């Protein structure tokens, strides 16, 4: 699904990724952990095509195609979804309309007709139920007036509607209280199918209590310094990163 080889990337002329190698197969769940400033968010932005990040070396191959020259919207249409750590507020753009536009953009790319208003309403209701979200997510402006937890829930709603093949969730658990974390984590579990691949970027083991990863990677100073199974996350929770970094 996704093969990252020797990936180096700069932001503002400073090298942040210093040779990332990662191989993610269909249906796998990978957790990426690491101390602040290690390059976790940068990795997610480079894969999804943020223009501020300059790739200086290496490749990102998704479904056998090097995607580094592709625009973010092309990457999304090909099936990559990034869940934002800080979802952007866009006043004046209705959330429901936005979801429909995004879905129709994908359908158009896939050669399908636009979804009918009736079918979209049905789909939206179904996904809202799935993530236990109320009607307030329909009629609001995009992320405007939502709490931190609700914004994350709205990201999961978009994930549910767009059904990407690869989802990268950047610190979806940050800023959530225990109850909100449970709701969001269960939402992710509900919407991700066994055919979809998932990269969870997180600081904490607690998200992984709900979504069990197949692999855990530790990122430090722009490189993956350790990979393992879910027990690695537990060890990190107990001992921190010092034993790996120093």
């Amino acid at each position: 699904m996704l093969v990252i080889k020797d990936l180096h990337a700069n932001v503002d002329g400073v090298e942040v990724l210093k040779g990332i190698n990662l191989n993610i197969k269909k249906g796998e769940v990978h957790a990426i952990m690491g101390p602040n400033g290690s390059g976790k968010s940068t990795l997610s932005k480079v894969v999804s095509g943020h223009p501020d990040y300059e790739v200086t070396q290496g490749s990102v191959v998704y479904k056998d195609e090097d995607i580094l020259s592709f625009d973010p919207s092309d990457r999304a249409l090909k099936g990559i979804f990034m869940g934002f750590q800080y979802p952007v507020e866009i006043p004046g753009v209705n959330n429901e309309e936005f979801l429909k536009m995004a879905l129709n953009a994908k359908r158009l790319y896939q050669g399908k007709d636009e979804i009918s208003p009736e079918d979209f309403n049905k789909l939206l209701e179904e996904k809202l139920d799935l993530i236990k979200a109320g009607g307030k997510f329909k009629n609001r402006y995009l992320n405007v007036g939502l709490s931190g937890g609700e914004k994350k829930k709205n990201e999961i709603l978009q994930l549910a509607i767009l059904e990407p093949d690869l989802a990268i969730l950047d610190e979806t658990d940050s800023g959530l209280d225990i109850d909100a974390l449970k709701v969001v984590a269960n939402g992710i579990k509900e919407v991700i199918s066994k055919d979809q691949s998932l990269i969870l970027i997180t600081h904490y083991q607690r998200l992984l209590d709900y979504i069990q990863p197949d692999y855990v990677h530790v990122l430090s100073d722009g490189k993956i310094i350790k990979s393992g199974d879910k027990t690695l996350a537990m060890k990190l929770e107990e001992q921190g990163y010092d034993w790996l970094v120093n």
Partner: protein
Amino acid sequence: MVEMVNENELVDLFLNEHKALSDSILNDYKSITEFAWEQFSKSSLDLNRAESWRYFPFSKLLNSLKDYANYEAPTKIVEVGEEDSEVANNSIKIVSGCLDKINQLNDNIEVTQTRYADKNLVNFFDHFFKHEQESAKNPLVFLNGSLSTSAILINVKPSEEKIPTLKINLLSNEPGVSWPMIGFNILEKASLNVEIHVNSEDDKSLLIGNFFAKIKTQGELNIDIIQCDNHSNGIIFQNRFVVENAAHLKLNGFCRGGQFNRFDTEILMTNENSNVDVNFLSLTKGNSQQHHFINMSHDAPNCNSSQLFRNLLFDKSNVSVDGTVLVQKGASQTFSEQLINNLFFSEEAKASTKPNLQILNDDVKCNHGVTFGQLEEESLFYLKSRGLPEELAIDLLTKSFASEVIEKFHSEEMKTEIKKLLEL
């Protein structure tokens, strides 16, 4: 580099134009207006003269015109009651400065018109607004007193039932200069919503529109204006509103197109507890210019005023907002706010603002803010990361920027129309 133009030269050109008009007293209207356009475009629409236009001394010109306003001309004050099924109910159509059609006005709205006005027009408005001294100082009155082809007064009486929205279509359909003048007299406890469309069907027209309004005790006037021009025309709007005791004025505008647009607006809050809300959205492209001068005067205690300007600038367009808020001595508990946001889609576009707070009383709250910027890259990335093509993402963000002003419009139809006009 901005080329500064000789102000006296421009004044002379306008005076020549006026001389030609006064000599023929509308016997040959077409040739005069074409001549006027020629002078206007030659002397003033030079695209490098943005700053000159912005600060063109209309008052100096207009004061000079006073001397020419003394000729005799026939003045008619006529009741207008004609109906025309071709236009919407409760509507007025004004073509090239003259009242053209009027249809099924609500019983609580009376329209009176004077034509071929000269200095008597001053008396006409003085009669209704009883601001003799101020009117005499107002250069606009002399401009129209000299050159106006039509002045319309709309008198609104209170009604127990809601008065339907009054629709006014202000159209320029031939090259030349037109000078419509519309006065609203909102009587005590009366309320009126007005939708005004300003369009042109041809190139080379200069529309000088004057809106005057007096809103009496507990009266309410909501004006929504859309100006959309696909031609290289000029518009100068000079507006003056007097807001009395516990009265409300809401003025919402959207402006797209035209070569040169200037909006001079003076609002006087003369009595206690009045409220004024001004919201303006503009989209400028090419070499077009748009300049706002707004003067908000708080003359009495406990009045609120709010101004919001949002400007979308493309290509080499040039937009300015000069906003003065004057809080007079004794105007305690004033609340006033002014926000101007400029969004650039081109590195060659220019925007400038001059907020000016003159506060002569303690115990007031006034604030102002200005922003200049481009589309937020993070927002653009967010939308694109959901698969939206760049064009659609930019379109959405543009509408997002505009949305706060659009939502202030009273008319749902106009909100939809503006969203369509914003499609890039």
